[in-house]
């Protein structure tokens, strides 16, 4: 069969499956052949973690789905599109799944025993199966009031990361819906209206299905969720080049069966598990010439009253309203709330002299701002470059790390991420990413100002940042009498979004009085040697302080007698003996980076990188543990809470390369990290926090996190990723 005939046959088959095959002779003039295109992507991983899991990170994902650093995999992505007629266009994508398709697996050959968990031929993680990832039809009827209607999967990038964000969970186009688009006034006014299905994990306790009969159902399989949707619309008006404005609004609703309705002959009534309304107004003005102004204001209203009113959720019980209670794992709160968020950008494109520009941003994101469908990754809602990716999800882990400690050991590893940190207001998600990609961090509650000057002169490029970040989540018991007044907020794994030792999607803590400042400098210079040496140097300093409990009356609530302990000898110090400053947390991050890039060959670019990261951290005294921490979090079962006080040094030497030929791209990173962690200890003395010097001969100090060894610990982490992408 010739390639042409084979493609035509495939095209006909796909069109028939999608029900879109044109009738014979229909619209022949405007129809175009089905186009096939796609890619072959191969990834090669190696590292000294030696985990044979999925070929990408799965920090908090399903066990055995990700977190591997070994093996090779190859995947096929096949896309198609066709102009069926002048009014109809279709497209779609089929894709094989990476996961654990190591070349050594032979596609699962040899294990054909109907076992879907043993990496055999029946295990979709290993058998190289291909599935439909997206399909859509776009109809352009030619009506004056409607430009187009798109039915099917979409990444929803036409909307806004604060409301209906771009979606990517494994794929960009997993999320389906119906999109209507139109325009008026000579296209100066454009509108979009969509009904977007809500993924079944974007509900309270990661579940949009409630239980009808009281039985415990597996994740994401509650009674009804198939019709849960977000309605979102926006109107954009741009009368001229100087200004434009956008009004956007959304309404998301999670509906579940009303278990109080026992009379089924008249159909089944439903209850609203949650609904979420967000309205936003955005604008931009650039008519001044010397400065551009842009900004946005959002108001959100989130209603979840059924979550705590006898409604059964994930574990067959209503949310108990406790901090770190039975609804702690969730991408959205379990109590009703409303709040606002805004930002204003001032952009000075030429500040006094040629080449000097300044961007300034004032921002305020309410602690109770909730948009269920806001972007969870791959967008950045703030100007600041944020914290350092290398510390995301990182913990010393020396005290409790072991090979079976999945969340700590199978995550991204001690090296953290290499990419930038992206600030998001959705529940940040970093599963199925690689270490060289950006990492998302949830910034709900952040407020402050960021200044970013840039200066290009001659062969030099300079950039800097100063950010002053306060927090709307600075509160004592969330304004109530005790930590359980924070019970409507989720905690997830990290108990707190601290940076080093924290979680990237746990922006709430019952006791917080935090202030963060970011100072960054970057200089680039092109040295005119050979093909030109690209030199880069950067320095970054982050001061992150949190006084946590600031009123002595809350100390017993925050640090009760019953704090779980992984140490047999640690003696609880309830209420920290009245020492308010004993739980103060201080972290100073210093980062130095240098790189040299060179075009070795017209097709090959290489970059040598050295980075030095240092953290000096005081995480309170030896009596302090995260408020509401549970014992399993400090054990080998999870390792989510670590003893962190001390000095950590991390060195990184890396070699990056990219190689292009027509139609193919190779790229890769070789990373080697080494460093050490030296624990230090503090205790209280007459109501003050003082350095604790272990007694002569003492080898450990008892803490809630276990008996912490007094010596320092050395680390190293090697990892490699090489990829090939052929586009055809």
């Amino acid at each position, binding site marked *: 069969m010739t390639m042409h005939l084979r493609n035509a046959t495939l095209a006909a088959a796909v069109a028939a499956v999608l029900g879109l095959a044109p009738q014979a002779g229909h619209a022949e003039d405007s129809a175009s052949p089905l186009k096939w295109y796609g890619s072959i992507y191969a990834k090669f991983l190696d590292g000294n973690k030696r985990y044979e899991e999925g070929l990408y990170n799965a920090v908090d994902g399903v066990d055995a789905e990700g977190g591997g650093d070994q093996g090779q995999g190859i995947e096929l992505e096949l896309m198609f599109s066709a102009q069926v007629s002048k009014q109809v266009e279709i497209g779609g994508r089929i894709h094989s799944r990476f996961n654990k398709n190591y070349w050594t697996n032979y596609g699962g050959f040899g294990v054909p025993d109907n076992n879907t968990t043993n990496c055999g031929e029946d295990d979709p993680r290993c058998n190289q199966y291909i599935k439909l990832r997206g399909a859509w039809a776009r109809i352009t009827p030619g009506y004056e009031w409607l*430009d187009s209607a798109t039915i099917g999967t979409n990444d929803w990038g036409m909307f806004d990361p604060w409301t209906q964000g771009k979606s990517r969970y494994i794929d960009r186009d997993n999320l389906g819906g119906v999109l209507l688009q139109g325009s008026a006034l000579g296209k100066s006014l454009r509108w979009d209206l969509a009904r977007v299905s809500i993924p079944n994990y974007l509900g309270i306790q990661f579940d949009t299905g409630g239980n009808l009969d009281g039985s415990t159902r597996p994740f994401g399989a509650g009674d009804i969720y198939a019709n849960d949707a977000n309605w979102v619309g926006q109107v954009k008006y741009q009368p001229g080049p100087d200004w434009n404005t956008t009004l956007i609004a959304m309404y998301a609703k999670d509906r579940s069966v009303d278990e109080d309705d026992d009379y089924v002959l008249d159909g089944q009534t439903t209850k609203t598990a949650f609904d979420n309304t967000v309205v936003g107004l955005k604008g931009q003005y650039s008519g001044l010439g010397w400065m551009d102004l842009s900004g946005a204001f959002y108001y959100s209203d989130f209603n979840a009253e059924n979550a705590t009113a006898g409604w059964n959720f994930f574990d067959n019980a209503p949310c108990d309203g406790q901090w770190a209670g039975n609804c702690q794992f969730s991408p959205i709160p379990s109590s009703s709330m409303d709040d606002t968020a805004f930002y204003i950008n001032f952009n000075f494109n030429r500040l006094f002299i040629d080449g000097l520009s300044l961007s300034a941003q004032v921002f305020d994101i309410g602690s109770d701002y909730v948009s269920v469908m806001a972007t969870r990754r791959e967008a950045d809602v703030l100007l600041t470059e944020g914290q350092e990716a290398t510390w995301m999800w990182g913990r010393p882990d020396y005290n409790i790390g072991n090979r079976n400690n999945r969340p700590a050991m199978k995550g991204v590893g001690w090296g953290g991420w290499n990419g930038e940190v992206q600030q998001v207001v959705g529940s940040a998600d970093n599963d199925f990413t690689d270490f060289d990609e950006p990492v998302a961090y949830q910034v709900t509650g952040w407020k402050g100002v960021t200044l970013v000057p840039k200066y290009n002169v001659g062969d030099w490029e300079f950039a800097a940042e100063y950010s002053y970040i306060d927090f709307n989540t600075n509160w004592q018991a969330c304004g109530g009498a005790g930590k359980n007044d924070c019970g409507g907020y989720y905690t997830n794994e990290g108990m707190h979004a601290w940076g080093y030792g924290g979680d990237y999607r746990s922006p709430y803590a019952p006791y917080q009085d935090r202030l963060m400042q970011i100072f960054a400098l970057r200089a680039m210079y092109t040295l005119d040697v050979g093909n030109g040496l690209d030199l880069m140097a950067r320095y970054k300093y982050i001061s992150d302080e949190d006084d946590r409990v600031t009123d002595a009356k809350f100390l017993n609530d925050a640090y009760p007698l019953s704090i779980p302990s992984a140490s047999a000898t640690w003696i609880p110090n309830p209420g920290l003996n009245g020492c308010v400053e004993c739980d103060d947390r201080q972290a100073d991050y210093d980062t130095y980076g240098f790189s040299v890039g060179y075009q070795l060959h017209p097709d090959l670019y290489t970059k040598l990188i050295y980075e030095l990261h240092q953290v000096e951290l005081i995480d309170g005294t030896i009596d302090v543990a995260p408020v509401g921490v549970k014992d399993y979090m400090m054990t080998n079962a999870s390792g989510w809470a670590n003893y962190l006080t001390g000095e950590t040094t991390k060195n990184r030497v890396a070699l990056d390369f990219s190689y292009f030929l027509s139609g193919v791209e190779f790229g890769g990173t070789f990373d080697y990290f080494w460093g050490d962690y030296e624990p230090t200890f503090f205790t209280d003395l007459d109501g003050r926090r003082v350095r604790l010097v272990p007694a002569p001969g003492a080898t450990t100090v008892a803490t809630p996190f276990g008996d912490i060894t007094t010596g320092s610990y050395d680390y190293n982490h090697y990892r490699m990723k090489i990829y090939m992408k052929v586009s055809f």
Partner: protein
Amino acid sequence: MNNKARFSICALAVGLALAGAAQAAGVKFADPTGDDKGPGSYVYPTDAVYTPGSFDLVALEVGDGDNPDFKVTFNDRLADPWGMGVGFATQMVFIFIDKEPGKGHTKSLPGLNVEFAPDSAWDKVIILSPQPQSRVGAEVKAKAADIAADIVIPRRTVGTGKTISAKVKLDELGGGDPATWGYQVVVQSNEGFPDKSDLLSRKVNEFEGQHRFGGGNDSDCDPHVMDVLAGKGAGTPDEAQAQYDMLKYECGADGSSVKRATLSVIRK
């Protein structure tokens, strides 16, 4: 690390910045705002990354010296939503240079669907792309090998504020005085997944899509160009109409080109 050391690093950076030599002015062209409509009918894709004004050419500045700067300014703050790492992502710019009137190429680059008038035939073109130099080079080899010798890809192209800039050695342009040359700037969009015949450029169709421009034709008879220099390059409002006239095109019923949009270069 103590605060004294941190302040020292800051002071060193400021000192380096102040030590940079001021750039002498070369030649500058302006373009009116609001004419980012190609031949007058084009509209942006519907995805939110294509922000208003982001393809609206405002100015071209060419520096002097042996390693002149080429700066192209837009009517919107540059952004990098796709993580290209060079300060911009959605734009792609072609700066055509006519050093010797009457000599050079009248056909343009693959995917632009424009021609140049014989008296504006170009000799060199500089591509300002957020893609790595190697990637652009590989595309040129595959799709424009016959004119590759006249295509210059700067080693580093960066976006700051509203301006995309790159340095090009005068030797790569064949020497001469840039202030005496004719220029045309073609504003396109960086397409990471281009059509087989397009040089990393984004298509213009009849209907705008999430990642394609609208207001043109589904065939390749329309210019895939959002903004160019026109008139005298002074930025006066009438130059918008001059651009629309220059980019006029005509398609046959079968989508073939009856009349190609034909560009002229602008000189000071």
